[in-house]
């Protein structure tokens, strides 16, 4: 994993239009992602994803950055809701679909923690004192990991 970017992909034995339906339609999204989904599927459109938790549901507001059926779907999400998702306060999730001889390659990239909202010199100072930005944070936080009781994380 390079810095703040997570990239994964999968090859699916189905046409690109079918894969697009599964990733973009609320009635399908609830089968692989959130417990509830309300989406205004167009560039700039907003959406709400709800995940059940032991306490109260976790609610995420998202905004679509790109809706280009059937090849590209991108949104930003921010937690907690109430703030406008924008670079600097939110994560960007991008799905890319590509045809591979009747099959479909689906790639997802989640990124955004690099977009520090403060000025460059300060950012530099921060990077210097904390390793390399987000990667430094990960290392730092990971240092705490062995201390905690190990629970399976699935």
């Amino acid at each position, binding site marked *: *994993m390079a810095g703040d970017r997570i990239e994964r992909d999968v090859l*699916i*034995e*189905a046409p690109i239009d079918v894969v697009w339906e599964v990733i973009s339609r609320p009635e399908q999204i609830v089968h692989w992602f959130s417990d509830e989904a309300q989406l205004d599927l167009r560039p700039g459109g907003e959406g709400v994803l709800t995940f059940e*938790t032991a306490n109260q549901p*976790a609610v995420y507001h998202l905004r679509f950055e790109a809706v280009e059926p059937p090849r590209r779907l991108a949104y930003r*999400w921010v937690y907690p809701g109430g703030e406008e998702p924008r670079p600097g306060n939110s994560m960007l999730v991008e799905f890319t679909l590509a045809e591979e001889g009747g099959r479909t390659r689906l790639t997802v990239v989640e990124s955004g923690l690099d977009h520090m909202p403060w000025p460059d010199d300060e950012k530099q100072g921060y990077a210097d004192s904390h390793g390399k930005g987000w990667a430094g944070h990960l290392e730092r936080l990971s240092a*705490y*990991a062995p201390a905690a009781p190990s629970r399976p*994380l699935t």
Partner: protein
Amino acid sequence: MSAAAAGQQEELWAALGEPSRLRVLDALLDRDDATPTMLARELPLTRQAVTKHLAVLGRVGLVAGRRQGREVRYAVDPDRLAEAARAMSAVAARWDRRLARIKAIAEAVHARRQVAAGDR
């Protein structure tokens, strides 16, 4: 994993997905505990902003506050932080699981449609 546990992990990950909030947490890691006023003094954030971030971190259990006089002193919960660290390293694995589910659903839909088309 239960939907509830997944939601909590998602929430924990999301609570850290804001750079200023991460800085508040980071500043708090440098000391045993601190008040919002103390943190606001060393960060380019107002006390109100710091308080808001601490509330979000508190909601997911990453920090806990203890009232002392007029102010609340906050400290990091190391167990919960360790959990957050694991949640972060598990984000890629989580996407793998989601992609696997997308694959299963899409292939089932496709197979069903092919059968339906064959029946016609």
